[in-house]
């Protein structure tokens, strides 16, 4: 049971990261490999604010999330907008280039030394024999809080509806006068902010090192594919499922296999059920007929 709790914590972080990723995939139509570097950057900016400048973790987290959200908008305008008309594969490779550049910046600015958030774990609570630390409770709460906020935003506001319109049919939305540019900026802000938030959470839970981005991109891809990319519920379920599977599998097989489990699940899902776990419709774009 203890591992299930760990799995839920990992899974909620994963769900936050993957939602940001899936949002861009749905509206801009490409896999943004640089997303995981945004997570790494978030983890580092947060740790510097807390550790070096002695800020409160919540203040530091808020500054990181908003700051990197804004950075995401700038990066998309500089890197992705100019090559947008060339289609998904050029965008994908541009995002690999951007990921490499962000990785280089992280190496240059923060060095290769692993870093830790000081004094953030809080006290240990016990419920029916299962221990859970304050920081883990806060992570789960924040993760689901922000996902719920995103859901409300997408369903309840004009801009949110515009985003969903662009996601379901880009051209029709454009023709109908949806402000595509501001929708795009909003998406990049939310996506990067979610990535940065997941990064800070990962850092709080473990340690911060420069390889975070490369380690997480595959897990995020796995969760996104597992969730079927289309529905928010699917992504949340996929994130939780993957998190729990990775942590529970540690009981049966050595922990060293943890990433292999995630990728094994990914491969199995892609091959056996490429439409994702929740989707009824067969994913036409995924399978060779």
């Amino acid at each position, binding site marked *: 049971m203890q591992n299930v709790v760990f799995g839920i914590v990992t899974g909620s972080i994963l769900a936050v990261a993957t939602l940001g990723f899936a949002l861009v995939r749905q509206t801009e139509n490409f*896999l943004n490999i640089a997303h995981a570097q945004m997570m790494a950057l978030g983890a580092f900016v947060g740790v510097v604010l807390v550790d070096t400048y002695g800020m409160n973790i919540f203040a530091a987290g808020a500054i990181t999330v908003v700051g990197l959200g804004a950075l995401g908008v700038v990066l998309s305008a500089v*890197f992705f907008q*100019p*090559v947008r008309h*060339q289609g*998904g*594969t*050029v965008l*994908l*490779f*541009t995002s*690999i*280039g*951007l*990921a*490499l*550049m*962000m*990785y*280089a*910046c992280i*190496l*240059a*600015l*923060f*060095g*290769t030394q692993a870093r830790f958030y000081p004094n953030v774990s809080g006290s240990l609570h016990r419920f029916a024999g299962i221990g859970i630390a304050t920081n883990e409770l806060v992570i789960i709460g924040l993760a689901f809080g922000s996902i719920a906020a995103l859901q409300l935003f997408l369903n309840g506001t004009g801009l949110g509806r515009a985003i969903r319109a662009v996601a379901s049919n880009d051209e029709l939305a454009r023709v109908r006068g949806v402000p595509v540019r501001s929708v795009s900026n909003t998406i990049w802000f939310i996506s990067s902010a979610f990535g940065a938030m997941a990064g800070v959470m990962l850092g709080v839970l473990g340690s911060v090192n420069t390889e975070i981005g*490369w380690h997480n991109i*595959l897990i995020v*891809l*796995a969760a996104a*594919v597992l969730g079927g990319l289309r529905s928010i519920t699917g992504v949340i379920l996929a994130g939780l499922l993957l998190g729990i599977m990775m942590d529970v599998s540690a009981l049966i097989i*050595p922990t*060293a*296999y943890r*990433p*292999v489990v995630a*990728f*094994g699940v*990914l*491969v199995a899902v*892609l*091959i056996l059920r*490429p439409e994702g776990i929740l989707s009824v419709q067969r994913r036409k*774009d*995924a*399978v*060779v007929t």
Partner: protein
Amino acid sequence: MTNPIFWVGVLTLAAIYASLAMALNVESGWGGMWDLGIAGLLAAGSYCYVILTADPDLGMRFAPGLSMWVAWPLSALFTGLVAFAIGAPALRLRREYFLITTLAFAEIIRQLVVIQADFTRGTLGIPNINRPFDSFVTGRDYNYVLLVIAALAAAVMYLVTRQIGSSPFGRTLRAARDNEAVALALGKRVNRMRIQTFVLAGILIGATAPVYLFYIRAISPQLFAPGITFTVWTALVIGGLGSIRGGLAGAFVLIVFTEAVGLIEVDPAHINILVAIEPMLVGLLLVLVLRFRPDGLFSERDSFGSRRTQAERASGRAATASSRPTAAAQASD
């Protein structure tokens, strides 16, 4: 400039990357299969070679201590088998999903290498890999021998891939990439061809793996992180995806450029910046080429487009559209 040995090393590395990029071009450029799992295939070939030739004293569970001339073709074949095992399920998926699957398989292979430490020595790695002719030529002079080996490998790779590219098989492959329906209608067995191509690229990468090891001299799983896949891809995209010379030219531009920048003297206090230079340059080059010259230095049309008229070239996007039926028509030759 600095000593010639340094530049011999740079050229050797460039030739190795050129071989890998040309092998990648066969499956990704012509076959349209966007493979992000080259690191995994390279790891399979490298570890197969190392295990077959390893010194039995290293305490690995399986160390037949074969001659390198036997192990070399065996590791190429083994990599082909691994490619088949990956390709058979993965090729049922389309572009993006295929790409994710190959990336995942590469990472699985790397993790397996780490975990199966009995066979591979895991993260410890294996030092002092035997190299051909190193009992005859010793010390610094060996670098020249290595350059000759790598250059020969690249030359053979160039000839082989050129042969594939201009053969009926290569034309059909490109036709199926551009318009699968037409190729199928012409009775081409597209899926079968794709898996053949994927395995062929695996064999070519597996055959290059030992040359890479001769250069690196010591093997560890860290070598096969996704970074190497991205570097090979960048080389190919810079040179021109789908062009015969693309991989060759792109790898030399990329490697000479990144290594030359590494020569800049940096204060040891700023060692971080030195480490960051390579990914920064690779990323920047990739972004710039995609933005300003998406066809690369040599485009596919330069390699194959002799029949295309000037008017089609001038009309930009229309030319690409009209080239599709052309490629398909060539396939029926």
